[in-house]
């Protein structure tokens, strides 16, 4: 498939998933009611479904873009936005906020602070002479991530039973508390533009520091910029939706398996595909057993696993 055709398809898919997200919900309100001027229907649409769908889309887009950036930075196809411990830092702080009984916006702010702290720790510890080798960066991140994991387990073990369910939902990835998606959208748009401007260099960096340097890439600066950009995306996503798994890992691979290899297309396609995937998953999470909500992170993984395995097998058989 030619890349522009794929991008067009992803735009259409995004529009369809967003429309579906607006049209469905636990109350039987349709788009037509809202457009006909029904005040109640309009309120449900504008105050509940629009922000939720917008948050889901931005969150998915950020995670997928961050995945592309982290995989290029670490030169590792198994890297994802959380591999350097961002979600661990965010989760630890979010859980502390939940344990303290703070309101949702403060939990989000806390998790953002945790994500920033986790990123700063990795940055400071992995950087030697203003550069970081991917292997050291990856190991530093993975070790810190397991440290955060221990802190999370400790918090879960010590938390009162009443708080544990909220914590588990946060950990599984949940968009029900996502508010004010404007910020996430702004970050997504800015990050996508920057990533697009860097994309030709990303193609080279994927081939290694020596080859990239020999072809004119300032590798040390590019790596620093990538780490910050990928981390910023992941931090914003995690603080609005919790640790939603699999999107950041699977979306870049899904796109690669369709034949998209040039990062100039990947950084455009990833936000579209990630946004569509997470919006669809979140719509299902809200409606499958409504009024009960499922954690969306579980659904992204349940959707992603068979899709990924199928594409992988198809690719191997061909």
């Amino acid at each position: 498939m030619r890349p522009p055709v794929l991008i067009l398809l992803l735009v259409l898919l995004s529009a369809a998933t967003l429309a579906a997200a607006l049209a469905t919900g636990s109350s039987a309100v349709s788009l037509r009611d809202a457009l006909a001027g029904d005040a109640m229907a309009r309120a449900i649409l504008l105050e509940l479904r629009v922000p939720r769908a917008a948050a889901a889309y931005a969150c998915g887009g950020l995670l997928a873009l961050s995945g592309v950036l982290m995989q290029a930075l670490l030169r590792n196809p198994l890297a994802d936005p959380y591999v350097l411990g961002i979600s661990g830092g965010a989760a630890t702080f979010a859980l502390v906020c939940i344990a303290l009984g703070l309101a949702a916006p403060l939990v989000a702010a806390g998790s953002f602070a945790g994500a920033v702290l986790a990123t700063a720790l990795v940055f400071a510890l992995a950087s030697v002479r203003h550069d970081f080798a991917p292997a050291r960066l990856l190991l530093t991140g993975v070790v810190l991530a397991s440290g955060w994991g221990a802190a999370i387990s400790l918090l879960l073990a010590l938390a009162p039973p009443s708080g544990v369910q909220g914590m588990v939902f946060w950990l599984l990835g949940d968009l029900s508390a996502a508010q004010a998606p404007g910020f996430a959208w702004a970050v997504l748009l800015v990050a996508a533009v920057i990533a697009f401007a860097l994309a030709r260099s990303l193609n080279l960096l994927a081939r290694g520091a020596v080859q990239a340097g020999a072809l004119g890439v300032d590798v040390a600066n590019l790596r620093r910029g990538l780490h910050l950009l990928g981390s910023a995306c992941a931090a914003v996503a995690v603080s609005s939706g919790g640790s939603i798994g699999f999107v950041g890992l699977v979306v870049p691979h899904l796109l690669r398996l369709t034949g998209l290899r040039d990062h100039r297309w990947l950084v455009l396609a990833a936000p579209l595909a990630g946004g569509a995937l997470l919006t669809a998953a979140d719509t299902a999470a809200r409606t499958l057993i409504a009024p009960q909500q499922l954690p969306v992170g579980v659904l992204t993984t349940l959707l992603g696993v068979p899709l990924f395995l199928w594409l992988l097998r198809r690719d191997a058989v061909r």
Partner: protein
Amino acid sequence: MQPALLEVESLTVMRGQRLLCERLALTLRAGEIWAVLGVNGAGKTTLLHTLAGLLDPAAGRIVLCGTDLRHTARRWVARHLGLLPQYVDDPFPATAFEEVLAGRHPHLPALAWETPADEAFARAALAAVGLAEAENRLTTHMSGGERRRVQLATLITQDAQVWLLDEPTNHLDLTRQVETMRLLQDKAQCGRAVCMALHDLNLAARWCTHALLLFGEGAWLAGRTDEVLTGEHLSRAYAHPLQAHIVAGRQIFLPD
């Protein structure tokens, strides 16, 4: 005399605490083909990376096309100097054509896409290494020798004045080794300066105009091939007795 493309002045290269070459002085001129020879770990790769500006020297100066390397942007360097690394591994798949086209990167403005002229350049480079038919094959599905030739085609596409090559004949069969050396000789005759790390003394003696011997611990010897490549010097460099023989009118070196 041909113009100097890369001038090395009093260059000291270290790797950690190890001294690889001390106060190295040499000038690569257009038309010259240099062989860098020495045992494993003598510092051939580190020296090439230093000459390419990827590593900082401990002391000394490198002047590329009249400009001190310290005062230049990476992109400018890459337009004037290309490097074939010893290894290139691709964790992500790319076709031969995509890989070779990347050689145009330093010549393109930041947000520009490759033009049909760039694509024609890449196709010509693939043809020059005998891979014209392979442009849509993934390099991850290629043999070691084919990948080596794709990397060489990337260097051709980069179209720099100074060509640094780290063991360019790795993985290549005999025919391809000779073809590669002939291609590099053509490039030198078109006004490029070529400098390559090699392990095959006889390739160096046959194709290179100049040689740099690294003896380890900072000692070196540079000059015309016929002056540098002697049984005595090579025996010292490799710490193994080597003899020069004349076979079919050509000098070859054989280890005892």
